[in-house]
Every structure is written in structure tokens, then in C-alpha cells.
């Protein structure tokens, strides 16, 4: 089947079986390999993308169900101010080790900060987190707050 999918603001025409998970369309068909395969059963979160701004596991989304939804991946998340701040905080705090799951972590953290720009520790704990990730979300949150103050002040 032929589908047209909006990814990072660009319409992509792809040919894929209906049941092909979005993950594999992104990686193998479109060539956006930043979204990672870890388990294929929505356990690990490495394949997290945003579907109309909401974090979702792309290994569980058949391409046929994407429709007109706007898909955002790690390659496009830096186009939003929140995503960019999160990436900057990650770099500043040297968060990643092997880095394989980090696309998923950043997508989750960005979604959290988009819905809740000043999360409490408990909020972060619920959403995700470990050590530097926790610190990096805080850093991104502070830096967002500063940006907002500058914009509004």
C-alpha cells in the first residue's frame, strides 16, 4: 500500500504493508534511523516518537493507522524550543553513555516538559528518569523558564 505520512513537517510517500510498524517505515523506508529498535513489544521505549505531540511507541503503530497525524522524531524534535532545550541540557550534562536509548528518553522528556514546563521531582520520576536524565530535565526546565521570562519580561 502507498501511504503519505507527515514526518517532522515533511510529507513522505511510502510503500509498505498495512501492518508494518511505523518504526520500520521510519528506519528502513524513509531512512530516519535515529528512532531505535530495542524490543518490538513497547517495553523499552527506544522507539518513542510523538504522534500529534503525544509520545508513543512507534513499534506498536501500524503504518495504516497513522493517517494524517503529525509524526515527530528525534531528527525533528530540535525544531521545537522545548526539544532544543532538552537536547542542549543533555549535551551540557553529558548524559548519554552508549546513547542507544537516548532518542526515546529525549522524546519522553520533551513531551513531559511540553505538558508540564516546571515538573516536580515526583512528576519527573513518574515520567522517566535516572540520575543525569533527572538532572538534565531540571536543567532544560530551568532554561525554558529563563527563555519564557525573557520572552514575557
Amino acid at each position, binding site marked *: 500500500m502507498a501511504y503519505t505520512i507527515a514526518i517532522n513537517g515533511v510529507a513522505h510517500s511510502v510503500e*509498505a*504493508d498495512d501492518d*508494518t*510498524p511505523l518504526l*520500520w517505515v521510519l*528506519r*528502513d*523506508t524513509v*531512512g*530516519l*534511523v*535515529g*528512532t*531505535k*529498535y*530495542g*524490543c*518490538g*513489544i513497547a*517495553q*523499552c521505549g*527506544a522507539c518513542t516518537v510523538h504522534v500529534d505531540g503525544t509520545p508513543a511507541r512507534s513499534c506498536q503503530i501500524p503504518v495504516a493507522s497513522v493517517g494524517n497525524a503529525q509524526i515527530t*522524531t*528525534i*531528527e525533528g524534535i*530540535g525544531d521545537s524550543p522545548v526539544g532544543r532545550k532538552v*537536547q542542549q541540557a*543533555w*549535551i551540557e550534562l*553529558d*548524559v*548519554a*553513555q*552508549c*546513547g*542507544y*536509548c*537516548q*532518542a526515546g528518553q*529525549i522524546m519522553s522528556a520533551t513531551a513531559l516538559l511540553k505538558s508540564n514546563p516546571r515538573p516536580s521531582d515526583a512528576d519527573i*520520576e*513518574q515520567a*522517566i*528518569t*535516572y*540520575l*543525569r*536524565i533527572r538532572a538534565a530535565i531540571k536543567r532544560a526546565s530551568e532554561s525554558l523558564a529563563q527563555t519564557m521570562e525573557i520572552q514575557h519580561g
Partner: protein
Amino acid sequence: MADTPAITASRRLVLKAALGTGGGLMLCFFLPTGADAAPGKAAATEFTPNAFITIGADGKVTLVAMNPEMGQGTKTSLPMLIAEELDVDWANVHIVQADSEPTKYGRQFSGGSRATPIHWDQLRRVGAVGRAMLVAAAAQTWKVAAAVCTTEPGQVVHGASGRRIAYGDLIAVAATLPVPDPKTVALKEPKDYRIIGTAQRQVDQAAIVTGQPLFGIDVRLPGMLYATFQKAPAYGAKLAGADIATQKAAKGVHDVYLIDGPTDPQGAVSGIAVVAGTWWAAQKARLALQATWADGPSRSQSSEHFHAQAQELSKQPPTMPIRKDGDPDAAFKGAAKVIEAQYFYPFISHATLEPQNCTASVKDGKVEIWAPTQNPEPGRDLIVRTLKVKPEDVTIHMMRCGGGFGRRLSNDYMVEAAVIAERAGVPVKLLWSREDDMAHDFYRPAGYHFFKAGLDGSGRLIAFRDHFISIGMNGKFSSSANLAPEEFPAFAVPHLEFAASIMQSAVPTGPMRAPRSNALAFAFQSFIDEIAAASGADPLALRLDLLKAAAAQPKPAAPAQGDPPFDAARMIPVVQRAADMAGWGRQVPKGSGLGIAFYFSHLGYFAEVVEAHVGGKGAVKVDKVWVAADIGSQVINPSGAMNQVQGAVLDGISAALHQRITVKDGMTVQRNFDDYPLLRMPEAPEVEVDWVKSANSPTGLGEPALPPVLPALCNAIFAATGKRVRSLPIDLTSV
């Protein structure tokens, strides 16, 4: 890792070469390697004093990261060593990842926390050679003695006149100069370091957070197809038959191949490969295959069977002596108190989050490989043997690994990809599913320890015995399933015996992050806690007493080659520091406890204290971990170092709380992260780290922080509840 003979042998080779006693490699290491670097060449556009360094006319510095990167940080920390002694501005350094070319760089692998101890001296000398040549070039230009010239980052300075020349302006002259013997070049005093000891980000951090292609799984080549590979579910079993016609005709499928191969899981074993236009199409067709498998050597083996066998063997004398000091039998007879306990740890899987994969292209007898591998050269050997090609016709690109932990010391997936690509005639990316990865690992071996300790009338530990029941084949331990005679409390107890019995096993095993130590630390340091409880001693005080006893023994002679032995005296301040950090002895809330443990592995001295809380229904919450460590005189990159320690501690807690591979009918029961869970984010405690600096040469960090956290956690649970954990993963409902 450290206990794999292949690596140990090769490491010695590299050390020998680095020390200048081997000759051959030394030349390869330090002679100019490119035409551009040939001495005397007119108007050089680059200065390449050796295989690791290139300086352009614009002053741009390119350094080679020689080892595979799997998150352990050597792509950053090893070039830092070169940059320090070359004396350049780190912000101006560009890092390139080496291919696997050992004749150019020496042995390239990532394992055993070896990068720092092997390369600390050698790579600083690589940098110092470049600096010496740039200084000589400036001296020649100024017609002054080299001895009166110094450097500042990126430039040579003549102190008396204040003249300066940028490195980029010296390359033409420097390229004409002889390359000095690396043994003779002067190294900086540590007080003058500008890069070593400063926190630097991983060089790929920005590429990681923006999703750039870095990992093996990210490789894409023109005309590339995707492959999946169905192997026998049972270890070492072969394909008996398969109907592949239907799947050959399936939509998107390019071809299906029956692969014949050896039963050794290190090679390209027998199975069915599906090649398709996308991985999903290949995987769908592969899951629909109908295949039958012959019985392998492991058919009758199971975790349950090993367990029953171990109980039987524990009642018989051990068959393999490992160490005997004094007269343990007599000491136990004379002991005022004897305690016994049985410890068990299961098989566990590496579960690298990036499943095993490799991209291969085979054309006209030339093989090109893109692999996330920790240990590329044995992969080249496998390909040479299997595809009957020449070693020099195999090119291996070492891709970033999404975790390694020892799994990628084996190259089974690499040779599989090469075999499939040869059949396909086009480049192929082989990707294992998560289920494949869990089913076909080289597992951390399971093991049983039947301990006995004897105390004298004053509660002093006088006798210690471990009957270790392990797995192996024909009387030889499986990989990473052995026990060394130096295991603590050797040297600390007058009457001591280590001995083993081996259960016949065909379960593939291999090194896993802190191999052996990741299991032995749990068993030994937990039982030492039991000894403390039995003698009424404080767990910290008993450990310090035992370490003092070991330190008072005459030191075993350091081997001429290989690692220095455990130095108990070095561990004492580390244990004390961890205790001080945690406020050992303080009151903790009801249901909480503090536990302590120490462990020496991979040349690192580590002591850790865990504060844990045990709630209703035995739910364990790790609140905080304090880590004290002596890894020598320098922590090369404090940011990377902190990451390694925190990661290792969380890895250990994950194994302690969750991980278990069960064997049934000669195959792995667990399939994915739903039945083999890893530590979840909210379970991750704060980890505080402090360094105990010593006058020793710096050592590595990928592994040694892991082992002590398991017993420290179990000991904290005992302090909180009085329940002794003797079996992993921790399940307080069964204690």
C-alpha cells in the same frame, strides 16, 4: 575481558610491543603511515607524525580513537591522552573512529576495563612524539635549542624572546624531521595537565541527542537488503529440515537460504536466512517459516536439573582443587562455631539494548563489514575461515555499539552477515530480533557456592571453605565460570580451601561486565557478612580486620608480565571512605538498612554502601549508593568516569533485583523484556562517588564498580530485615 585467554595473550603482546621488547608492532605504531607523512616530502599539507595524529596547515588537529566505543567513553578518553601530551586545545580537536587495523594501531578491542591500563603510557607517548617534533621544527626555524622552547596549546613558545609559532605553521618543517623514539620523549608532569583530569563530554554527545546515524544498526548502503536469521532454539542444535518455498514467494522477500554451519555458536551456525527489502518483511517471512531441528548436545539440560545436580554434588567431595592453606579439616574440628550456607546465582543475559546486527558486503573476494563489535579481529578470523578469503581482503568498520557488556566480544553475528551477504550478492544488514538476542547469548554462567566458616572462641575467623559447583565441559570450566585461587578472603584466613565440582553443560557462556566478579562478589561478600553476624562483629569492622590480616601477609611477588595482584592495604582506605561517606553506623528509618561490601576487579579497588528499604510484601527500594574507589593517580575524564560508575552500579542493581535466564530443554526460556525485565527508571537510586587517589598508574572503569553493589544491597536487606539473600535475583517472599 580479563579472563578470556585470547585477549590476555594479545594484551601481553601489545604491552610487550609498547615496552619496546617486541619490536615489530612498535615500528608499526610509530612510523609514519601515509605518503603525506613521508619525511622530506616537500610542501606537506598535513603533519602526520604517527598513525594517530594529523595536524593541518590551518592548525586543525585530528586524532584517531583506536578502540571500539560502546558507551564506555574511550572514544573520548583515549584521544584526551594524546591531546594532553601533544599539547593542543581540546576544543580544537576532531576525533575520528579507527577501522580495525591492528598493524597500524596495535590490538583494538574494548573489554576487561583494559583501555586505560594498556594505553595510559603508550598514547601519551604518541602525543609527546608529535609535540617533540613540533618543538624541534620551531627550534630549527628560530635557530635556537629545542630545550629552550616550550609549548602552550597549539603553539610553540620561545621563552627568552616571547616568540610563538602556531602548530599549523610548523607542519612543513616538522614533516621533514626524524620521528623520535617514543621511549625517549619527555612526558608532562601531572601538575601541568590541561586536559587529563578535566570533565569532557563524550565526543559523540551532540550526534547522539540529535539522532544521527552512529550505531551498527543505523548503517545504510545503496542497494542494501535486510536479513533475519532463524537458528535452532536449542544451543548447538542443527537444522533438520525446512519448507522455504512459501516464504521465498512472500511479498517483499528477495530470497531464503538454508545455511549449513558448525554447531559452535561462536561461528556461522546452521539456520535459515530470509533476505528482504525491509527488515519487517524479512522478519514476517521468517516467523512464518516451518522448520525442524535436530537434537543438540544441550537437549536434556535445564536450570532445574543443574540445581538438583548441584545439591547432589555438594554432598560429595569436590573434584578440582583450587587452593588450600593450612589444615582446614582440623581447624573446622577445633572451631568454637561453624556456619554453613549455600549461595546461588543464575545465568543472565547481556541484553544490549541494540540487538546484535551487522552489515556486510561481499564482492569479488573482498569483504566489507560494518559491525558494532568490541573485538573485531576474531571476527576477521571467522570470516577468513568461513568464506575462504584472505585476511587483507576483509575491511572492518567498527560502529558505535548500543551497549556491549562483553556480548560483542563474540562475532557470531558478524560472520553470519558475511555468509548471508555472500549468498545475496548485494550488501545485507542482518539484524537479530530481541528474541533472537536473548535466545542466542553467551550467558553469564550460573553457579553454586557451598560455604563453610569456622570461628574460634573469640569469634575470630580461622577456617574458610568454598565448594564451588560450576558448569563446564569434560572437566573444564565454561567460559567465565571459574574461580581463581586469589579470591578474597585468601591470605586473610589461616586455614582456607577453595575447590570445585563441574556439571556438564552445553549452555554457551562468556564474559559479562566484570566477568566472574559480578557473581563471586555477591556470594563471597554476602557470606562474609554472615560471618560478621555469627561472630557478633560489625560488618565494616570485620572487613577491615580481614583486610589488615591479608595486608600483613608477605606480598606475593608481582608477576613479570600481567596484572599486579590484589593489594589488601590499598583496599583499606577505600572501605573506610565508603563507610564515612554513608555515615556507617548511623540510625536509619525502620525497615531500612545499610549494607557494605568491597571488591577488587579489573585492577580497580571499590567499596560500596547501599541504603535500602524493604516495604510490605518484601518490596525492595534502593535509596542511595555510596561508592569509594581507588583507580590510581588520575581520573582521566571525570565526567565519563562518573557515568561509568553510576551505570555499573545500576547494572548491578538490575541484575540483583530482576535478571534471571532459565534453561529448559537446552534452550532459553525468557524471550524479551517482559519476562527478562531490566531496572526501571524510578528504581534508580542516587549514586554518590568519591575517588581515593593513590600513587598507582591509572586503571579502567567499565567494570569494577559493578560487583560490590550486589552484596552491599543484599547486606543492606539483612540489616533492614534480618533476612539473608542467598539466591539471585532477590525474592524476599522466598527467604
